[in-house]
């Protein structure tokens, strides 16, 4: 990783939902990382005041770009700026990529089980994209829990991957509002079990979401007989 801050330029922005958007950042030099890693962003006001936050990388776009997806927090200091104000051509300081644990690369053995709550899908999307790009023969499943159809990130791309990649199964679970004919309600233990590879398949499991979501889902999977050593978690909050 790079220890020093680098200046990146916003090369594209794309709305994901009413409150989330993807920022594509272009670097002066080559940038490379592993799915699941994050970067630090540093913002500096005119008077020198600075704020630093970490964001998961959603996509690596070789050789010089990467994408982040940021969701606006109600009381956020940085995320509303990134979602509503920052424009193509603006500059940001970036450090990283960082992280060597919550990562997946196509050479990792075992079926890939991804479980996302809300914006926790971002680092898992980087893994799924890497899986697809590598045309991996490893079976993969994504269980993605969202409030409503309007809260789904990467909708079009998920549909394409789910339809065209025979190794990938994508399940979206809706907690507050669902499309016609789809069940609605809080994610249950039974639903998680039904959408996951069974323990005997020895999947590697990545869970990302709010603390409550990750705590509940990880505990259910351990109850189901999954080895805790094969479950990796990342939580957002604060």
């Amino acid at each position: 990783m790079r220890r020093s801050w680098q200046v990146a330029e916003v090369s594209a922005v794309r709305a994901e939902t009413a409150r989330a958007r993807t920022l594509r950042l272009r670097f002066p030099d080559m940038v490379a990382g592993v799915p699941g890693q994050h970067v630090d962003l540093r913002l500096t006001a005119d008077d020198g005041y600075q704020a630093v936050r970490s964001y998961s990388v959603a996509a690596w776009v070789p050789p010089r770009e990467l994408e982040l997806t940021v969701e606006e927090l109600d009381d956020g200091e940085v995320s509303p700026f990134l979602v509503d104000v920052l424009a193509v051509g603006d500059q940001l300081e970036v450090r990283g990529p960082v992280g060597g644990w919550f990562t997946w690369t196509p050479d990792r053995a075992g079926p890939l089980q991804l479980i996302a709550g809300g914006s926790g899908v971002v680092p898992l999307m980087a893994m799924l994209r890497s899986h697809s790009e590598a045309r991996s023969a490893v079976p993969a499943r994504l269980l993605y829990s969202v409030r409503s159809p309007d809260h789904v990130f990467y909708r079009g791309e998920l549909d394409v991957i789910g339809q065209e990649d025979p190794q990938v199964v994508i399940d979206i679970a809706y907690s507050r509002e669902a499309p016609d004919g789809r069940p609605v309600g809080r994610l249950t233990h039974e639903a998680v079990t039904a959408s996951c590879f069974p323990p005997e398949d020895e999947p590697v499991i990545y869970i990302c979401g709010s603390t409550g979501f990750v705590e509940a889902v990880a505990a259910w999977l351990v109850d189901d007989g999954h080895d805790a050593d094969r479950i990796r978690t990342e939580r957002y909050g604060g």
Partner: protein
Amino acid sequence: MAVPTSGFTGRRQNRDADLPPGQYLTDGFPVMSAGPTPQVLLRDWSFQIVAGPGETHQWTWEQMQALPQEDVTTDIHCVTHWSKVGTTWRGVSLDTLFEDVESEAEYTMVHSYGGYTTNVPLDDLLDGKAWIVSEFEGEPLQSAHGGPARLLVPHLYFWKSAKWVNGIRLMDQDLPGFWETNGYNMYGDPWREERYW
């Protein structure tokens, strides 16, 4: 030399609090951990200090609770940039636990239920700098936050304050623990911003 971010003003909350560089205040208590939360029953719980071959000091939950308990009020700083000020904890000072431990070792590896490890120099655990805590804000420590007991070593980034702690092994040389093998700094001083490799 920092590059200004066009249109960014920020909230400047850091001006009022004395926070290390790159940190922001949070009122919540975010959780950072690598895997499922271990569930540890108090009757099965134990804590040990392994000082060398044949020198192990061990405490059960009851024995630990019977030791002098200290109240600690401190700021905590997570490597993921959040800080929380004025948190209150209750637990046993490591000075108490190390009272009868004889060793020339200068480094330690802290071990936890669930397999987590983190390395801390012995000097950073002694002289009123570290505790095994079992209460947070006057309540028993929740498992998601490291209960029944975690290490509290608040002058270092909070990943050093190992959750679900169950032992400390003394080492002659400094070896990396879990996050230290996965991209984080060997020491982790927030005031010098020692986040990563």
